């Protein structure tokens, strides 16, 4: 099967997959909320019915916001506002919260008010003189697309409305983009690893778009010399905008994110080369690989027994694409199914290059949904799945012994954030495999009862 060209219907007679989906991805409204909540010292006002507030709550948790610091609000639109318009209630709600000590209030509109034509930009403009914080309207109704589209919409609005292009450049600096478009359930650890790495190389971070980012950082984003997109699913449009508008060069473009030894080595080398820190990069690679190797020698991972076991990867592109090489090289398994939540062209091209480079020809599914994933698993019959709690349950009855939950984990909750990026990230992934191996072997029944 040709990589990247393999979206053949599982059952030839099944109807078009266009009408009925069981999606993995949330909507654009959620993505915009996720992005806005990454701005520290701000609040978010959902101009929506009260149910959409739950998407905000989920974004709130994903961005690790603290309810002692960040407030989320909702206009709680009802029939009246849908019939007569909700601009008055939006204005009233903004006035209700004008005493908040915040730097910005992001006003995000959902499907209802966008369809009925509420002009949130006009409301925010007219009320701006009344409040001490910035009002930032973001029109990102759910029907505009997936959560990744919402992230791009929100980043676009922020960059266009908030960035001060007159600030001078910070030499050798970087702006980090879309760290939150990452299905690692504790993705802030990936961002932390990137920041530590950059700090060691002496590369200043001018802005992170977005996670615990002060508004002043967003305003100064144009002073970065380079940008680094930390997702294969979103953020590329923001990098393109920064490049076109402020001449900010994107680094580490078109290579997989640093998951696994080879990807990390390649990513660090690219950084080292761009910032003339080759020696530091080489040292980091040597130290990191030594640490991972010796740790594995001492901890004895059982994943080594899964040599060339057929595997499936069901994830976002950010984790899923780099996992292909990690699973193939480091873990010595054989990816036979790669199912990714999204389907943008640059991401497809990247995956195809990786598959060609590795000489792999798995079944590839872009923009998969739960039904298609299950059908894909049924067809391919992998023995190991790198995926989520959804696949653990969707794979029931398919005889798959190992479901390694690495993304969207709903059962386990990690109190300590764990990265997948970099060298400790490799160990974290190895640990996921180790635990799943143990669970699969755990006796489910007792042959007899103890006497004591």
């Amino acid at each position, binding site marked *: 099967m040709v990589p990247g060209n393999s979206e053949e219907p599982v059952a030839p007679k099944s109807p078009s997959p266009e009408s009925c989906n069981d*999606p993995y991805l949330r909507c654009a409204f959620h993505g915009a909320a996720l992005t806005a909540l990454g701005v520290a010292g701000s609040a978010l006002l959902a101009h929506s019915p009260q149910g959409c507030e739950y998407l905000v709550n989920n974004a709130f948790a994903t961005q690790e916001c603290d309810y002692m610091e960040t407030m989320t609000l909702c206009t709680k639109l009802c029939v009246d506002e849908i019939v007569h318009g909700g601009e008055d209630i939006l204005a009233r709600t903004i006035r209700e919260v004008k005493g908040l000590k915040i730097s910005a209030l992001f006003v995000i509109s959902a499907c209802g008010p966008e369809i009925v034509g509420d002009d949130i930009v006009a409301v925010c403009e007219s009320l701006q003189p009344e409040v001490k914080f910035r009002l930032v309207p973001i029109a990102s109704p759910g029907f505009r697309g997936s959560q990744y589209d919402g992230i791009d919409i929100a980043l676009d609005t922020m960059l266009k409305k908030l960035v001060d292009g007159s600030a001078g450049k910070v030499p050798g600096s970087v702006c980090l983009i879309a760290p939150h478009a990452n299905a690692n359930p504790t993705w802030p650890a990936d961002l932390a690893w990137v920041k530590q790495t950059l700090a060691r190389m002496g590369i200043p971070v001018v802005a992170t778009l977005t996670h615990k980012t002060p508004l002043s950082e967003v305003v100064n984003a144009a002073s970065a010399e380079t940008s680094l997109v930390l997702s294969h699913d979103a953020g590329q449009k923001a990098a393109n905008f920064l490049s076109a508008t402020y001449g900010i060069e994107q680094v580490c473009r078109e290579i997989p994110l640093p998951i696994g030894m080879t990807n990390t080595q390649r990513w660090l080398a690219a950084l080292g080369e761009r910032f003339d820190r080759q020696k530091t990069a080489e040292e980091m690679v040597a130290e990191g690989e030594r640490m991972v190797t010796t740790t594995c020698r001492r901890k004895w991972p059982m994943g080594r027994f899964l040599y060339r076991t057929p595997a499936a990867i069901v994830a976002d592109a950010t984790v899923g694409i780099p996992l292909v090489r990690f699973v193939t090289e480091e873990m010595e398994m054989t990816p036979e199914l790669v199912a990714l939540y999204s389907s943008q062209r640059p991401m497809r091209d990247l995956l195809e290059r990786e598959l060609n480079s590795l000489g792999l020809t798995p079944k590839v599914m872009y923009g998969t949904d739960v039904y298609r994933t299950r059908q894909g698993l049924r067809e391919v019959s992998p023995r190991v799945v790198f995926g989520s*709690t959804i696949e653990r349950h969707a794979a*029931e009855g398919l005889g798959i012994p190992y479901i390694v939950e690495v993304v969207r984990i709903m059962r386990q909750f990690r109190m300590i954030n764990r990265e997948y990026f970099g060298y400790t990230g490799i160990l974290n992934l190895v640990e996921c495999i180790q635990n799943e191996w143990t669970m699969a072997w755990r006796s489910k029944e007792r042959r007899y009862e103890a006497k004591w």
Partner: protein
Amino acid sequence: MNNESIVFHGNLQQLLEKVETGEMIPKLQASHAPMCKFFTAYYVISGIRHVVPLVHGPTGCPLYMSDFVRTRECCETRGVPLEPTACTTLDESNVIYGGEGKLLEAVKEAYAKYHPDLIVILSCCCSGIISDDVESIAREAEKLVGCRVLALKSEGFGGDFRSGYEDAFKLIMDLMDPPETTMKGTINILGARWGPTPTEFNWDLDEIERLLTAIGIKVNAVIAGGCTVEQIKHAREVELNASWCYDWGQKLGDLMQERFGVPYSKTGQPYGPAATREWLLGVATPLGMEKEALEVIEREMKEVEPDLAYLKEILSGKTAIIEISEFPGPIRALSLARMAEEFGAHPVVINVHPYTIKERMPSIRYILGTGVNPEIILTKGLFHLGSFRSSKETEDELESIVREYDNPIFFGNSGRFPPCPVVNLTLMNPAFQPQYGFKGIKNIAALVRQALENRNLPRSRLFRGMLYGTGKQ
């Protein structure tokens, strides 16, 4: 009581009157957002086995349900296989040109993919505003597939959380066939609304079923707590409907009585001996099984005699401060108030949100009709901006109110730190469940004992700091 933080101090009847006249309704638009109509409708529908809830909307609405209800709850704790959360993924083009054609295709596709016993189309804000005729599409689609197809207009803006539950229950009535026979000594239990009941922690329902079985009463269906379409079809063949929670069962119970003539046993939640007796006799007497029920009650009362004696001894003359928060909810708290009074305590219910009263008028009126009219205190913090779940204001106010009572005991959950014994009645700790029935009496007695015997042990600075801050932030 002279406490500046108090905005209402009276009884339940007086609060109800203030809510009815609009005097006591929170005005802050930004404050406290419970689930929307779509969510709650979805919850009820997902309690039917082999159903495809087909969401006619963009991906945001079903995704919450997919993650939270289907995967996390159903698969992880409710013993249910992963079922689809199908969606038409409405996009900008559908919003402009309409999505009815796509919906019809989606129904056919859903049937081909999932082989369900029932498909329920749920409309969202988008499809509601653009006026896609989901009901006509359902009728049309039903001719093309091998199962019933129903439609529920459940736009998030179209009502509050309660209307979603109630409209879904009403819709379920459309599945009920005219009775061909009468199932003697059989009832339906109504009002299960959070999807299928959990397999691991089916506490209160298990206790009800245990007592019913002891009397000799059978249950046809728990609607909609994991029932089948077949059970719903036969729901009119039972002799009686009862509810596991008066508040949630009453609408469906009343409607089935009105439309189908199936009598409905109106009783409150079985908290404590009197309410449990009422609940059981309320079911057994119309079925002609009063004698059997009285025998069971007598036997069970003997079992819990030491617990009853303990509760009477400990609670007599005390003030039971009962707070409504996430767990237990408002109706349970009022049931607890009744129980506390039964054991000689004076119940004071703190911070039952006026929104809650407004949404539960029929149930509150019923509770008042049974003679339960506890003292109620509402504080300023309840009306502050933002979430009222773990607010520092309401915690401070609670602590201050508790100090003004002699011998108070707090009935609520362990997220509160009042300076008195705390009876942890959260439903999130399976170690002391159920709270219903006679087993519930044992468990509540054990929780009261824990609270009193351990009252001098230090509380967690960690959890307190987590919930309310350390004061240094």
